[in-house]
């Protein structure tokens, strides 16, 4: 139905023409869900944009053809192209929060779209809209259709988005990372919905994602992209389980496995070209310096009955502003020199816990302990409190965790200066350079700015910064969830190494169970501010106790060992 042949897309730009897509071909049949997988910059979204004819200027199709049925999409005039959009091809965007017009009720948006493409009375349009909403799994749609987007939860909103994409029953829907912004539970529901639609309505889907699990769970066929070129394509089963292309192989290897814990990841060669930190000479200095600090025993960290309440903005004179309980009497103990994995869906309070430990958030109740001495809470914790040095943090987004206006050297030297670990300017520089070496970056990075590095490299820098405080405890909040799998693998390896070498105590926060399994000794599961399960990691994964834990595990996509993913039978399952 959709056939793309030797598609090439180019972006003429300042440094000559950049070829985003090169000679890509793929076909999608009616009812087929075709996965388009690749790491960031692989050109996934560009293909989608090219097909629906919304390439951001100055990009243009320099070669190749795109046919939908027997219409050549590339030769269409603006108006025809515009007709085709929505009528025959539609699109689903990544973030449901931003893809709906906040000022219009979803009713208006639906009816408008329907009437754009069909000459049909508002009444009929409305009833169609309602049935669509019900089809996409929104109960008593007839009332809720009157609502505004902000009144729906994330998952519901994505359903509305899908309804909008459906409402002119197109032949092809391009879904660009449709579930990346969603929690696993919601994710699997949305994926079910997509599969269902492919079945019942025979709509073809182009499912763009970076998540192998999603592919595995949903697609019959998959195309693996890298640098704008097709590495490999074929039935999902075969591509995932018996990849032929070396890149695909390494990519698969890098995907953290949910079913078994490996002590190291196999790392594909990537554009960064670094294996896990090659220990250079200066790296040894750094290591020596790290060890030269206080006693090398890991330090334990624990919280006791911590409760955190946030008061919302007051919006009435009479009603009290409603209180939101982020953490409800949470206790947790991290054994010295071990890694504690902390899992939970968004809003479960994971990050709040990190903030409590680092003293950014003031708990309404509870106590903290560092080793056996009490750790002062946020307001009580002075600027000069020793714990500030001992406990360091690694953030999720390496793009925002480094001040883009400071040179790497300054960023790294800051802890040394702040904690008075090293008072000589020159020495600070050397140490910073050495630490870069330790985390596997070349020392000349010192004079550059963060934006000159890739995400993975930045995360390494962030780690280096935390190490330069000579910490005993690292708190890693989703340290790799912003990274591509291959990079993720490297960073995780790095963390593992460091942890082992310096017997660091780590609190590893992640929503990705597979990653957590690979990293942690113990695990704590958090659900809406409460601990639902805690205990040794392996035990947990082999035999989860709480229902919620089981549900989580079952919903987490996992390609390995999945049987018959491609077969439609699976749709009813899960």
């Amino acid at each position, binding site marked *: 139905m959709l056939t793309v042949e030797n598609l090439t897309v180019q972006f003429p730009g300042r440094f000559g023409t950049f070829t985003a897509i090169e000679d890509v071909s793929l076909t999608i049949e009616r009812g087929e869900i075709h996965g388009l997988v690749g790491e960031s910059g692989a050109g996934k979204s560009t293909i989608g944009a090219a097909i629906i004819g919304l390439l951001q200027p100055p990009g243009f199709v320099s070669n190749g053809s795109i046919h939908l049925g027997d219409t050549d999409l590339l030769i269409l005039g603006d108006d025809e192209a515009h007709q085709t959009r929505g009528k025959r091809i539609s699109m689903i965007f990544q973030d449901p929060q931003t893809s709906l017009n906040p000022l219009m009720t979803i009713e208006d948006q639906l009816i408008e779209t329907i009437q754009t493409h069909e000459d049909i009375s508002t009444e009929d349009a409305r009833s169609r809209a309602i049935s669509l909403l019900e089809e996409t799994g929104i109960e008593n749609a007839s009332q809720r259709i009157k609502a505004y987007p902000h009144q729906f939860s994330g998952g519901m909103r994505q359903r509305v988005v899908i309804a909008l994409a459906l409402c002119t029953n197109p032949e092809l829907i391009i879904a660009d990372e449709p579930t990346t912004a969603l929690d696993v539970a919601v994710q699997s529901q949305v994926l079910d919905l997509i599969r269902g639609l492919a079945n019942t309505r025979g709509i073809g889907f182009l499912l763009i994602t970076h998540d192998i699990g999603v592919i595995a769970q949903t697609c019959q066929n998959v195309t693996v992209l890298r640098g704008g070129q097709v590495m490999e394509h074929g039935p999902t089963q075969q591509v995932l389980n018996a990849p032929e292309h070396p890149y695909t192989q390494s990519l698969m290897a890098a995907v953290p496995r949910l079913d078994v814990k490996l002590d190291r990841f196999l790392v594909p060669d990537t554009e960064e070209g670094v294996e896990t930190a090659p220990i250079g000479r200066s790296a040894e200095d750094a290591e020596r310096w790290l060890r030269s600090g206080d006693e090398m025993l890991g330090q334990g960290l624990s919280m006791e009955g911590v409760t955190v309440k946030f008061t919302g903005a007051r919006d009435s004179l009479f009603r009290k502003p409603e209180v939101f309980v982020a953490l409800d009497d949470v206790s947790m103990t991290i054994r010295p020199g071990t890694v504690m994995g902390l899992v939970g869906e968004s809003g479960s309070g994971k990050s709040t816990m990190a903030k409590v430990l680092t003293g950014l958030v003031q708990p309404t109740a509870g106590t903290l302990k560092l080793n056996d001495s009490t750790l002062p809470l946020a307001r009580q914790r002075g600027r000069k409190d020793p714990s*500030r040095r001992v406990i360091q943090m690694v953030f999720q987004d390496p793009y*925002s*965790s480094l001040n*883009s206006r400071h040179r790497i050297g300054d960023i790294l030297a800051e802890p040394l200066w*702040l904690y008075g670990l090293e008072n000589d300017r020159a020495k600070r520089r050397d140490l910073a350079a050495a630490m870069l070496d330790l985390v596997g970056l070349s020392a000349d990075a010192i004079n550059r*700015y963060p*934006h000159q590095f890739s995400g993975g490299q930045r995360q390494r820098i962030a780690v280096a910064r935390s190490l330069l405080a000579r910490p005993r405890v690292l708190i890693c909040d989703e340290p790799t969830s912003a990274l591509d799998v291959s990079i993720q693998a490297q960073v995780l390896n790095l963390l593992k190494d460091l942890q082992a070498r310096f017997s660091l105590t780590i609190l590893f926060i992640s929503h990705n169970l597979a990653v957590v399994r690979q990293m942690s000794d113990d695990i704590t599961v958090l659900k809406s501010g409460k601990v639902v399960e805690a205990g040794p990691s392996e035990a947990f994964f082999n035999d989860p106790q709480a229902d919620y834990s089981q549900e989580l595990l079952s919903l987490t996509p996992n390609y390995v060992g999945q049987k018959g993913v491609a077969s439609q039978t699976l749709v009813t399952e899960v």
Partner: protein
Amino acid sequence: MMSRFFQSDGVYYFLRTPSAIVAAIIVVIIVGGAIFAPWIAQSNPYDLASFSLMDGLLPPVWQGGDPRFLLGTDNQGRDMVSSILYGARLSLFIGFMSMAIATVLGVGLGLAAGYYGGRFDAIVMRIADVQLALPAILTALLIDGISRGLLPPSVQQDLRVVVLIIAIALSLWVNFARTARASVFVERNKDYVQAAMIMGQRPSRVMLRHILPNIMGPLLVIMTVDLASAILLEATLSFLGIGLPADSPSLGTLIRIGMQFQLSGEWWILWVPTIVLAALVVSINILGDFLRDIFNPRLR
């Protein structure tokens, strides 16, 4: 990000924006002329002995004026060219000073308000409201009045400029405060700020060394725009008679004096300074727009 745009892209797009180039040239010429006025100008309008009433009201040379005075003279016999140079000098000085004060004041308060939030924030914002409720002209009148009341007349004359600067600065700072505050609200939740806070760095350091550099973009834009409006405001105030005395020729006072001659045939006394002022303000604004586009690449 910012710095990259600054180092390379800035230059790159500048060279591709003719309007910006023209504007820059105009600004450079005027500012240069203003800075070097004492050396370029043939006569100093402040030095009463340097000009004579006898040369009054001479037209520009191409209208058969005296070759000594390219653009003619005003009713005091002052060479228009020199007056303009010194006028631009004064106007720019006032503009820059008031803009600088407004920036420091506004950004300072805005940063603190955004960083600490809560009651302090509320207070600052109310003060801002009061300020907004007293638009520029009235603020100027207020300061002007108070200064007349408090300063002995003997120093008033010398302090007119200062008074004017303060007045204009006061009417501009809110802009900066609001913008800075808004940007801080965004920045303070970013990880690099959180990191700094966790480390236990002094709030002042977090604000100035970490946050400030990252919100410079929008501030820079406001600075240019407000520089322009400060210069204009000075002109307006002079027109209302609460600006500068006529013997210290800013572009504004020159225009004010020129207004008397718009009909009487001596058009140049009004239009020469007006055109210079307009050219200057327009150019600064264009540069402002250019900066905005640079700092907000999505708008390009």
